[in-house]
């Protein structure tokens, strides 16, 4: 019974901590205009802390055995790998504007080579 009560207390404390974290995120949002970079880092750090609370206590990972590493390590690696895999083609190149000068040069090159072809 005492064990149950202690679990109940832990859950209540975790719930309280999660509420405080969410409140902190909402407060941080008020300072978004002043320093967006700092606020971004702070709210993401808060999100990681909240996720850790939910996983460790509500999902019982704190009390689970070693299988949790076998199951979660590959998925975490793949989850991190996907955005990294997307960066070269999508993140760095796809939406970046091709400098206007380069486009003009390319057009000029194309038209001059077309003229050259006609000359032959």
């Amino acid at each position, binding site marked *: 019974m005492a064990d149950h009560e202690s679990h*109940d207390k832990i859950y209540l404390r975790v719930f309280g901590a999660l509420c405080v974290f969410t409140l902190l995120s*909402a407060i*941080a*949002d008020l300072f978004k205009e002043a320093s967006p970079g700092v606020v*971004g880092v702070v709210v993401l750090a808060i999100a990681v802390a*909240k996720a850790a609370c939910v996983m460790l206590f509500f999902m019982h990972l704190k009390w689970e*055995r070693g299988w949790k590493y076998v199951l979660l390590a590959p998925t975490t690696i793949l989850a991190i790998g996907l955005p990294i895999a*997307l960066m070269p083609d999508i*993140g760095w190149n796809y939406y970046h504007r091709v400098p206007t000068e380069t486009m003009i040069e390319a057009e000029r090159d194309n038209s001059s080579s077309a003229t050259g072809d006609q000359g032959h």
Partner: protein
Amino acid sequence: MGLKMANSKLCIWLFLGTEIMFFSALIGTYIVLRLSSVDVDGDRAWPSNEITHIVTIAGAINTFVLIGSSWLVVKAHEEIGRGQFKEGLRDLLLVFACAVLFLGIKGYEYHGKWVRDILPGRISETRLQAVEKAVRQIGTVAALDAKTLGGDAAKKALVAEHAQLETLLRQEKLTLAATEVRVVTLTKNTTYGQLIDSNVMMARIYRDRTRDAAGNLVSLDQEHHAAYYIPYGNLFASCYFTITGFHAIHVIVGMIIFFFPIRKGLMGGLEEADAQYVENAGLYWHFVDLVWIFLFPLIYIVQF
């Protein structure tokens, strides 16, 4: 041999492993697309919360709702495990109510975007697209029958106005500012003004813009008329509705999962063995909460 845990729990965890990859693919893609959306100067150009009608307080309330429901699930699990079925049922019902509340708030947010046409593929991203959209929508109103428009004379005038706007558009002589003036003038028409107001999105956005103490319009952004076109707006809308939509579907699935023990409880049939089902359902529900914990800052707060 084997793991010292219920097969059903192992299955749920394996399923959650696939879910982690599913949502991290969505969220990861969103981050990459957002980081790579730049303007002509190479600066970040993702549309702001004000322009896209992202309501931070709604997201924060929904975070509280999901966190509260997660806590109620672990409570219900403990209570059913120790034979306190009445309390367990009460908490499960509250979890279900939280899910309904979450979807209600999400529906309110979706409605705000729906009425402003902030939907994938429907957002003007340039000045020209904004002008074209306004002229097209005036054309839609002009195509209505004369009776709806308030008589033959009114219809004839509106058709003529639309034809003139189309001609100016084709000749590339129609600016965004001029279109705004024409649209606002049309909304003041005594016969079809109301139809223009409700069917032409430019009129709606014009009304949305705030006014200063003197009653003059204040633009939403540095640039005047910025609200009429949203660069990267369609990309934003696609990301927003895909990610939050899939999350909402998971909430609905959670409601279905919780429906069965609730029904059993209402008929007085809950037993201690059901604690395992509630634990598995809870694991799924916590994951849904976990996803939202990351979506809230990434969609509602972070400006990168």
